[in-house]
């Protein structure tokens, strides 16, 4: 009995020494990525409902500077592998971003829907754009972030984990990227 009490006491000391919960540790993340992971800031992605496997890959790439964005590289540089898992699992538990209020211009939505079909965005990313495993959720993502990301994949200034997005964006024009971002950020 004494042993158990001693063990419990020790455990509580150890826990209080590194007492921050993942919610507390993630507070700075949400300062930029928005309450509940819904970003209100230009070019900063919403995180809510993101696939854990995709989030893990991105956090890893930030830590290793395989994806370069200084605030994120700084934020993750001292992360252990366990930290990367803890944060990516946490991100996946955040609620999905709220869909936008406006349904979009019908003509532009129809034009972009054809592009989505032609480019098979709804294949890997799923018909509802919720993604799966390595493939990110893009539904209800910020339009500016979606367009920026596609431009960066196309000109290879953002390196993907693999080559897929660099390849599929090669024939997609800048105007088409804008239409795709417009559509994907609004479709429901």
């Amino acid at each position, binding site marked *: 009995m004494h042993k158990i009490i001693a063990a419990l006491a020790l455990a509580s000391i150890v826990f209080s020494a590194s007492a921050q919960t993942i919610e*507390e*540790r993630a*507070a*700075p993340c949400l*300062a*930029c990525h928005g309450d509940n992971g819904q970003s*209100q*800031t*230009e*070019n900063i992605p919403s995180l809510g409902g993101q696939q854990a496997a995709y989030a*893990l*890959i991105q956090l*890893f*790439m930030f830590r*290793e*500077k*395989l994806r370069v*964005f*200084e*605030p994120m590289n*700084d*934020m993750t540089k001292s992360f252990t*592998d366990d930290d*990367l*898992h803890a944060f990516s699992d946490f991100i996946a538990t955040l609620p999905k971003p709220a869909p*936008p*209020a*406006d*349904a*979009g*211009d*019908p*003509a532009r*939505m*129809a034009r972009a*829907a*054809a592009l*989505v*079909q*032609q*480019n*098979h965005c709804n*294949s*890997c990313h*799923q018909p509802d754009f919720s993604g799966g495993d*390595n*493939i990110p959720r893009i539904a209800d993502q*910020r*339009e500016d972030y979606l367009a920026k990301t596609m431009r960066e994949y196309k000109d*290879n200034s953002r390196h*993907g*984990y*693999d*080559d*897929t997005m660099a*390849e*599929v964006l*090669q*024939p997609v024009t800048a105007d088409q990227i804008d239409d795709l971002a417009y559509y994907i950020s609004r*479709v429901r």
Partner: protein
Amino acid sequence: MRIHLSAPCSLWLAGAFIGALTLGAAAQQPAEPGPSATPAPAATPAAAPALPAGSPLIGRPGSEAAAKLAPVNGPPIATAADKLPVTKLKVPAGFNVEVYAAGMANARSLAQSDKGTVFVGSRLVDKVYAIVDKDGKRSVKIIASGLYRPNGVAFHDGTLFIAELSKIDKIDKIEDVIDNPPKPTTIYDNLPKDEAHGWKFIAVGPDNKLYVPVGQPGNNVLHDDAHGQIRRINLDGTGAEVVAYGVRNSVGFDWDPETKQMYFTDNGRDWMSEDVPQDELNRVTKVGEDFGAPYCYQGNISDPDFGWGHSCSDYTPPVGLMGPHVASLGMRFYTGNMFPKSYKDAIFVARHGSWNRTHKAGGDVAVVKLNKDGTVKSVEPFLTGFLEDNKYVGRPVDVMQMKDGSLLVSDDWNGAVYRVSYGKKVASK
């Protein structure tokens, strides 16, 4: 990591890429116009403009079953040694499989130095590893970081060659500097920079030249003169020459120990169908042969897009077919004495495993036995168990024969290397 909880976003962003981010007044997303009076009829897309010639999306079907298929990539963090799926792996009776080394995220191509150090490339991370055996103790070192998709490694006369996405590097006298290696120096960079099929397997041939593949820049592309081939260069990077044309994406080759002819694996195209084309095992009998891509696949299928006006008979057919979408990658002839005689001069081929197929295929190491004339007698699974309930528990990338005749197999899913031996289990030295 201690973090100040109340810091605003602007503080995190301050000093970094201000030019790229418009902060302050413009930081809020502009208010959208109120709810649109007419909801968007999203279900009735307008006609899209035609895909340009050579688009990687040509031929991709829109069906629901096809939509479920997406490239499969392993996690970026290596599996702990005690969590590796080694007990699930199966080999023929009399063979053993064990973990040789772990903790090398995305472990890909293998090469061995004359002193027994094993070099391991990677594709999704930026590192080259060395598995060093010193006084019976094995350890893993990172010998290069910050490289771009350093998939290929080769060792020759003391020098380690590394293939990045669009350049070939070397580190001279690697064994002498292995505890503190210098940055690799680039010897050849006259290579396309495409992401698609841009990562490379490399090897030094019996002619003491370095062989460098340049894949097609996409699934099925009418490529230019700089793509779809295997080149060879002198070991100082000079004298580039194309050895084989019509190569879609080769990630493995070796030379027949008797005839010195080059054999290479080539990955067949995606999205034609579930069952064809199969990956090819090819043999180069003379410099400059054309193996058909993108006009003809597996020796007898005229490509539906590019095959018109061409005949498969214009191209060198494969000597063997390795299965549909299986991703036949690293391959080596077996010249050791440890395995039974029937394996002598057979080819081991790592089949990474399919993504573009409903029921995954491959995900094993196959053994290819040849006839006396160098044609294929049989293709059989050798090391299996990486595929479980249509999901990967590991994915083999390369194979390499050790001096004692055992066979190493890399697994990029788990970041590990396994060792296959025969007979009474003896730990490798």
